[in-house]
């Protein structure tokens, strides 16, 4: 009797020892560790290195960060002719993209929030660009906007708005990547095309979360389609739209793939964008310090945009 009792006590004591999983502190630390290590190693370290590089005279040939030269790189790059153009172009493409993505994603979600015949087909079409590899998509767009063989030009010629004596001028081609305005528009179009599917999914998720009652109430209260859209849907979606806008802005402002594949920033610097300019300077041109400085000019702009947007989102939720 006494033996079994002590055996039981031993057994239960053995089971009762708390494991790592029972202690909140260490467990939380363990579970956070991968994310922390990841961020420190792949975001924190390169960021600090970039700051160090930007303050040094490092080049590809002499990549030492010991040659401290203060803010000189920052002054140098600002005074180059390409910088203001690249900054302006980056801002134009980013703002144009996010405005278009927000408008089109709202429109598409408005469409997909309704029930209609063949809805699945349109859903697949709308999501398709997202599933496409960027390189494939870029080649597609290169061909679509080719100087000589662009099918868009062909269609414009066929409907009579391009060519001698027509709306878009006498030339038979628009030379998309050869002209400043058209080149920026083409890059904007590619960005919009690429970001719209995800934007639509995010907005649609927000749209379906709005209680249906509110829409019926608005109808009974006498509101037509546009009043419902602008007074009910858009204000209710505001926090989500801000998220989409910030997301689009961060992706577009930091992206150099599209400009690298399409216009290469030309002709001259006329369609140059900041991230590609930083790449050309730092990696292609070998001036690591100056390249880092160009890239770091983008940081306060992105940070300010993110803080502003998150604040707006917070206010619209709690106001």
């Amino acid at each position, binding site marked *: 009797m006494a033996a079994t009792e002590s055996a039981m006590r031993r057994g239960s004591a053995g089971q009762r020892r708390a494991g790592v999983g029972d202690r909140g502190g260490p467990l939380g630390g363990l579970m956070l560790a991968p994310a922390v290590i990841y961020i420190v190693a792949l975001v924190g370290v390169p960021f600090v290195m970039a700051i160090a590089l930007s303050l040094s005279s490092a080049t590809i040939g002499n990549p030492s960060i010991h040659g401290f030269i203060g803010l000189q790189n920052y002054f140098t790059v600002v005074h180059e002719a390409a910088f203001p153009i690249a900054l302006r172009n980056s801002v134009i493409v980013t703002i144009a993209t996010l405005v278009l993505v927000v408008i089109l994603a709202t429109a598409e979600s408005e469409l997909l929030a309704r029930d209609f015949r063949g809805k699945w087909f349109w859903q697949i079409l709308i999501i398709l660009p997202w599933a496409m590899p960027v390189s494939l998509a870029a080649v597609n767009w290169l061909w679509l906007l080719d100087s000589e063989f662009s099918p868009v030009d062909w269609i414009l010629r066929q409907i009579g708005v391009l060519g001698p004596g027509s709306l878009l001028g006498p030339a038979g081609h628009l030379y998309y990547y050869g002209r400043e305005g058209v080149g920026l528009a083409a890059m904007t179009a590619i960005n919009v095309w690429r970001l719209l599917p995800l934007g639509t999914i995010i907005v649609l998720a927000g749209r379906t979360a709005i209680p249906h009652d*509110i829409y*019926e109430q*608005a109808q009974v209260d006498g509101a037509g389609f546009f009043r419902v859209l602008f007074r009910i849907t858009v204000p209710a979606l505001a926090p989500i739209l801000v998220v989409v806008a910030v997301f689009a802005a961060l992706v577009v402002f930091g992206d150099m793939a599209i400009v690298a594949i399409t216009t290469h920033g030309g002709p001259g610097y006329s369609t140059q964008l900041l991230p590609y300019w930083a790449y050309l300077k730092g990696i292609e041109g070998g001036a690591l310090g100056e390249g880092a400085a160009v890239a770091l000019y983008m940081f306060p702009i992105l940070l300010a945009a993110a803080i502003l947007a998150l604040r707006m989102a917070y206010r619209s939720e709690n106001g």
Partner: protein
Amino acid sequence: MATLELRGIEKHYAGVHAVDGIDLKVRDGEFLAILGPSGCGKSTTMRMIAGLEMPTIGDILIGDEVVTRLPPRLRNVSMVFQSYALYPHMSVAENIAFPLKAAHMPRAEREQKVAWAAKLMGVEPLLKRRPARLSGGEKQKVALARALVRAPTLFIFDEPLSSLDAQVRAMARGELRQLHDRTGITTVYVTHDQIEAMGMGDRIAVMKSGQVRQLGTPQELYSNPADTFVASFLGTPPMNLLKRDGRIVGFRPECVRVAHAGAAMADGAFRLEVKVIEVEFLGADWQVYAHAEGGSEIHKLLARVNSGDAAALKVGESAQFTVAPADLRYFDATTGKRIEHGGN
């Protein structure tokens, strides 16, 4: 202010007749309650009146105008949803002003109207608040203010009290009815709660399986139910129904008397041998649970009796219930429809 008329309304969903032929006339200024269990088609009927659903067959007239094909915004109908459906991103004042803005009312007039509606519903101190910071009762008042601010031709209420606490609900019932009496606007009130329907409605339309089973004043419905469904749906506790001689006999629990041994009985009184199961004290009277004896099946009965009668009853023992002939209602055993005379 207007009349409302439904002419042969049917609504089919994928072959199911959710509403199956409703003819209904609501008088100008009347408070009509549509009462029925869930799934009876009352909500669909209401949504068709508001214009949120299109009837498959039939016509809806507001005033003397056919509005069947008109969208909700052209009907000048105000609706209060069960959830109140306040616009979450607008202040209370903006919520109340919304129908006026939609009607393009000038700003000065609009502000005046909002102030009037807010005062009428007593929500003036809340005008700057967002709906998220209102209590259930406050939300209801704001929803009512929004509904009445533009002087609609018709009010539609979709179970507006069901999300309130029991205590607030009784109060809100009174306020709603007073609001109707003050404005005189024709009202359709949809509910599954017979106490609300009985207490507030000028008339009640009892619905089941997409059809109106009976339309009448609460008193008519209570004392002369058209069929066994209405008889068992109205009244707490409901009418007792039991099979006798190939018919169904019904009587209200409060019509039961207990036969005292040796006492003389009125002529033609209905007598019933019962076994007393339970006796509950309710305050003003007593509630008796009993099983009717005889016949192949056991009928559960309820009776409301005074303390004198209750004293004569013992749990577990037999007793004799009697009901005066005037209090008896007869129904067809197969159709459940009321038979006008006892037909002895």
